[in-house]
């Protein structure tokens, strides 16, 4: 229904263009149910129907952009578009040509529809809550289809539809907590139960006297979720061509060859994980795998065609924000089962929190430990630690101090819902790191 509406609407919209005007349209549709939980009860439930149409208007090598919301009433949507077109025409001659101007082009046609099998909302509520009758849970259920479409006045039409769901949750024993996430192509109650039991079982190890760690440097094992938290921040401009060229790239020294990372580190954008469309907002099809770091060497930055035009380099069809959409770190050789044994004495960290660049130019990150983090002696968990602040360089953490990566990788679909549901995923292993620097 959406696809037909977009085809009909856009054909009408493109008829309104005058000579030397071009338009590209990028659509986001979502039909979402959200449920927020606290104390194993429902705090808020929200249903959302959100239809966005991002309009890129080009004339005489100049460009302006506007996002409008579609009502799916043809006459209303057409009227809104006409108002935007009038505004573009009024302003565009008075702006300058941008060095990153990228002319709209026809990047072809594609269609991919991915369905999941998931329970209805009325079924899922008792299923979830029955598991937490005796445990304090706070969490978030999100489900429903997201559709992305990229169309332009030169004939391009790409369509991606993905139904998905996730349950992101934490369980608490007082102020001690552990975290889990469940998402799948097909809802499987057995897997769901196991996921919850594994998360709840972590609370048992937390039920020991808390240990206050002094600031200093510790051999540390990071579970995949903690690794994902670090990489989430590094991906904030760290792999971006535009950020590099403009002096604001966290990995500038790596790119310049002034610093190195461990040869154990292989990092890709892997769109074949299937959690985001193969096309970007302009409809360009990126390679399904882009090698970004190979054996510790930064070999490619995420480069949009706009950056490629501005800085006279090759595009790899990144999104305009130039963050990796589906970041994957290749596995290593350490078995997760042997993580405690290999760690010996040190910190076992399940999660990190509020990671931010503390010194962008030197790739230093700060953040906190969170949830199930333990002090380990002679391969045995001694007890949970008081939360600690770290401040350390990427060139230490994933460079000279990276000892091992696990064989097992964990896949985390994006749970971000700022403004609208974000697609994408992260797939990473756990990591053993020497001398992780804790400061407070």
């Amino acid at each position, binding site marked *: 229904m959406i696809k037909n509406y977009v085809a009909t609407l856009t054909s009408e919209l493109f008829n309104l263009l005058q000579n030397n005007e071009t338009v590209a349209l990028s659509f986001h549709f979502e039909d979402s149910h959200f449920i927020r939980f606290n104390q194993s009860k429902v705090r808020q439930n929200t249903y959302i129907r959100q239809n966005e149409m991002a309009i890129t208007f080009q004339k005489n090598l100049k*460009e302006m952009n506007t996002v409008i919301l579609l009502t799916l009433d043809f006459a209303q949507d057409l009227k809104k578009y006409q108002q935007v077109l009038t505004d573009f025409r009024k302003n565009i001659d008075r702006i300058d040509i941008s060095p990153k101007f990228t002319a709209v082009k026809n990047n072809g046609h594609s269609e991919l529809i991915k369905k999941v099998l998931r329970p209805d909302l009325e079924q899922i509520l008792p299923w979830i809550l029955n598991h937490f009758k005796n445990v304090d849970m706070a969490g978030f259920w999100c489900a429903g289809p997201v559709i992305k479409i990229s169309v332009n006045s030169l004939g391009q039409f790409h369509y991606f539809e993905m139904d998905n769901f996730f349950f992101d949750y934490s369980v608490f024993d007082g102020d001690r907590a552990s975290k889990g996430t469940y998402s799948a192509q097909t809802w499987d109650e057995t897997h769901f139960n196991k996921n919850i039991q594994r998360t709840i079982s972590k609370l048992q190890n937390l039920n020991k006297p808390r240990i206050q760690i002094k600031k200093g440097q510790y051999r540390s094992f990071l579970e995949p979720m903690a690794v994902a938290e670090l990489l989430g921040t590094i991906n904030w401009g760290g792999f971006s061509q535009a950020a590099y060229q403009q002096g604001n790239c966290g990995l500038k020294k790596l790119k310049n060859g002034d610093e190195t990372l461990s040869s154990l580190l292989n990092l890709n954008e892997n769109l074949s994980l299937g959690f985001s469309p193969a096309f970007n907002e302009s409809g360009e099809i990126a390679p399904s795998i882009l090698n970004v770091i190979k054996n510790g060497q930064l070999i490619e930055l995420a480069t949009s065609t706009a950056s490629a035009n501005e800085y006279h380099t090759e595009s790899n069809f990144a999104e305009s924000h130039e963050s990796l959409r589906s970041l994957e770190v290749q596995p290593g050789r350490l078995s997760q089962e042997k993580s405690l044994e290999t760690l010996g004495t040190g910190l076992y960290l399940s999660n990190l929190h509020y990671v*931010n660049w503390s010194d962008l130019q030197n790739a230093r990150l700060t953040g906190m430990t969170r949830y199930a983090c333990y002090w380990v002696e002679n391969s045995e968990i001694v007890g949970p630690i008081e939360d600690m602040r770290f401040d350390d360089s990427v060139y230490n953490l994933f460079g000279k101090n990276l000892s091992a990566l696990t064989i097992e990788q964990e896949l985390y679909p994006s749970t971000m819902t700022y403004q609208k549901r974000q697609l994408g995923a992260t797939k990473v292993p756990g990591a053993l790191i020497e001398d992780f620097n804790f400061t407070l």
Partner: protein
Amino acid sequence: MQLDIHHLLKKYQSAADFISFTLVHEKTRDLKVRNGTPADLNQFDDVGLRIELMVNGHMGYAGTCELTSEGIDHAIEQAKIATRAAANHAIFNFDPLKIRPKNLGSYQSQRQKKLDQISTAEIYDFLKYTSLKMKSEPLVITSNADCIVIECQHAYVNSNGAQINQDFNLVGLSFSATAEKSGETQNRTFHGNRAKCLQIGAEIFDLNQYLEICHGIAQEAVELLSAENCPNENCDLIIAPDQMYMQIHESIGHPLELDRILGDERNFAGWSFVQPEDFGKLQYGSPHLNVVFDPNVEHEFASYSYDETGNPAERKYLIRNGLLMNGLGGLESQIRSGLPGVANSRASSWNRPPIDRMANINLLGGDLSLDEMISKIERGVLMRANRSWSIDDYRRKFQFGCEYGKRIENGRLTKTLKNPNYRGITVPFWNNLAGLTGTNSIDIHGSPYCGKGEPSQVIRVGHASPYAWFKHVDVFGA
């Protein structure tokens, strides 16, 4: 806005035990000019309807941009299905009259010239010339001038009889210069990244005033290239208002949110070290510390007359003479917790439900001039403009980085310092507050990007502060 929400109220009045409609129309121009040429010229014309409906004491929500009879029918039907299912497992049984009061009123941002009176092309020119001014400084490799210009109208009605219209004009101005020499890169901005956010009209785009400011920003970016690194030591610290806004936000605003204290946020942003029994008892800071929730400050970014449940917004002390007095929670959190709160149930837009948010949280002034404050310090550092921030999920252990520092030696400002940072623990830090500059030194900042909630929301916040002097702070450099 053509949709008649009064008509909707009549039509759907009996659809649930309580129902409300909020029509949000927000037009945003988000424009960025780099090195004198267009970087991003984006607009967002956002219109949608939020519906609240109550079933058996549980409030459910729907949001739709399909503002047609079919679209609204569908949203209400989906909300009813979900809310009926959820009501059997609800965390609290609310009385709609107590959480959605019957109030009638309106609000309009202070402005001399409405924002719809300035064209995108005129704003572009302003950004182009300010950007070029910064770029004209030798060694500046990148100069960005950007702004968000927002015209936002909220119309709210509910089945208890409330009718509220609020009309906001908002501008966030941002300038940054990145300078580079011999592998060293430094960045200086106009009070931090998009921290100069105000409710104001088009009169803010005064080119001559900002050309001078931009010249200063570029000069300081270059100055930092040859500055010394901030030392690593425990010393006195003066924090300028353009870093204090972040300090207040992270270590006072968030921990006092009642929904955090109640645990709603535990799976995402975190809990709080503040316990319900701390109100009226906890000495949060030294006697110099007086903090208010104040939604009535002219031009401050998060001023309003009513929150999004129709609760009238009034100034209230959160901390008085260092003692914790009140939390930041709307009517639902106040009833759930039994604690006093404020009118701060707010949503990022029509597509998210209201939750406890900060709005304007302001630190009141003291009795020192900045010169007097500096003269009292034998050895310390002054820091300006936030560039890095992080705090734990209970809001205890923080670390902040700033753009620009000055050494204080024997009561005088001496050399410029690059990469100044500090870290601390919330309650001991605020108890080491040794003095504040006077009311006339207070500067207003804010942010459009305070993140919280599931589904996630960014909200606009405002923070006004004088210069603040802290003893015994761990400062450090790169």
